[in-house]
């Protein structure tokens, strides 16, 4: 018992000594640690900043990949249909002017609005995006660089791209496609906000994965 009492008497002092010891060591090293932390923070900022900028394109890419957008941006001559992106029925093909081949012109069926009688979708200037603006199967980096390349996008600068995606009735149709078609999941105002944030940051593109 006596030995136990002695131990319990000494224990608080022992603990205090250890705590003080650690504190002394820690305080001695504190200036060095702080400097390291600041340096690391700066280094992290340098690494994170471009990554953040390129990440601005991710939500934009998610919208561009939606079937309502992507179905008319194929990288071949066949427009797609449906959420499963199957090739357009009736063997519809691009044609020289992206408006369909003889007898299979877009306007043979698609009008300025959805058909209430048949359900055939419609919006003003219904057409296939030029082959140079094909997006299907592209990763974020390539999708972004294709999007902003004036040689491929019909000479649009970033402001014109934003305008196109914010106001073009054909683009807006993707949010109100009618029938049993799935609308673009990101609400349009949110998409425009994300698009503008990307544009305001200088339209940075992600780096291609190696």
């Amino acid at each position, binding site marked *: 018992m006596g030995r136990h009492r002695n131990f319990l008497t000494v224990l608080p002092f022992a603990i205090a000594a250890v705590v003080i010891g650690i504190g002394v060591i820690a305080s001695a090293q504190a200036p060095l640690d702080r400097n390291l932390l600041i340096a690391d923070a700066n280094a992290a900022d340098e690494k994170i900043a471009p990554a953040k900028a390129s990440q601005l394109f991710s939500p934009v890419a998610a919208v561009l990949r939606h079937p309502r957008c992507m179905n008319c941006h194929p990288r071949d001559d066949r427009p797609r249909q449906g959420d499963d992106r199957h090739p357009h029925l009736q063997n519809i093909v691009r044609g020289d002017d992206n408006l369909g081949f003889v*007898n299979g*012109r877009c*306007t043979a069926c698609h009008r300025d609005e959805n058909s209430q009688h048949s359900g055939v979708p419609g919006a003003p200037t219904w057409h296939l995006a030029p082959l140079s603006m094909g997006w299907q199967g592209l990763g974020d980096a390539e999708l972004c660089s294709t999007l902003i390349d004036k040689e491929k996008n019909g000479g649009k600068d970033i402001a014109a791209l934003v305008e196109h995606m914010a106001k073009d009735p054909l683009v807006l149709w993707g949010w109100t496609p009618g029938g049993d078609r799935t609308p673009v999941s990101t609400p349009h105002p949110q998409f425009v906000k994300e698009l503008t944030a990307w544009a305001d940051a200088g339209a940075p593109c992600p780096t291609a994965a190696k």
Partner: protein
Amino acid sequence: MAFTATINGKKNSIDVDPETPLLWVLRDELKLTGTKFGCGAALCGACTVHLDGEAVRSCQIQARDVEGRDVTTIEGFTADASTTPVAKAVQAAWIKLDVAQCGYCQPGQIMSAVGLLTQIPKPTDDDIDKAMDGNVCRCATYHRIRAAIHEAAKAI
């Protein structure tokens, strides 16, 4: 609401709901029953007519879309002088090769064939495949249709 359109060379004033499909304007209002109803969803091509010389699906075109425009139906391809040389060549080839079987899809097939040969007088098989694919034939007269288009092309 009244709409004015030139149908087979003749001006017509049509008083119908603006959203009425052209197919029903032709068949019900103007009694031009050569244009057939097949699917009503632009899938079969039976209702093909020409709007300003271009093949369209009349089940998808609304009455208001034809205001002031030219519509040609199968009845427009008569044997008289008003019929275009291309349409005449197609008629002759169709008769020569006895293309039709049940015949229900043939008005649409002929409208599309004329549309193709008007724009591509000497079509390849690939051109025919691409231009005629939207016209379905339950009797599967596709081989005769292809042969008749090549036959008509010789005469153009």
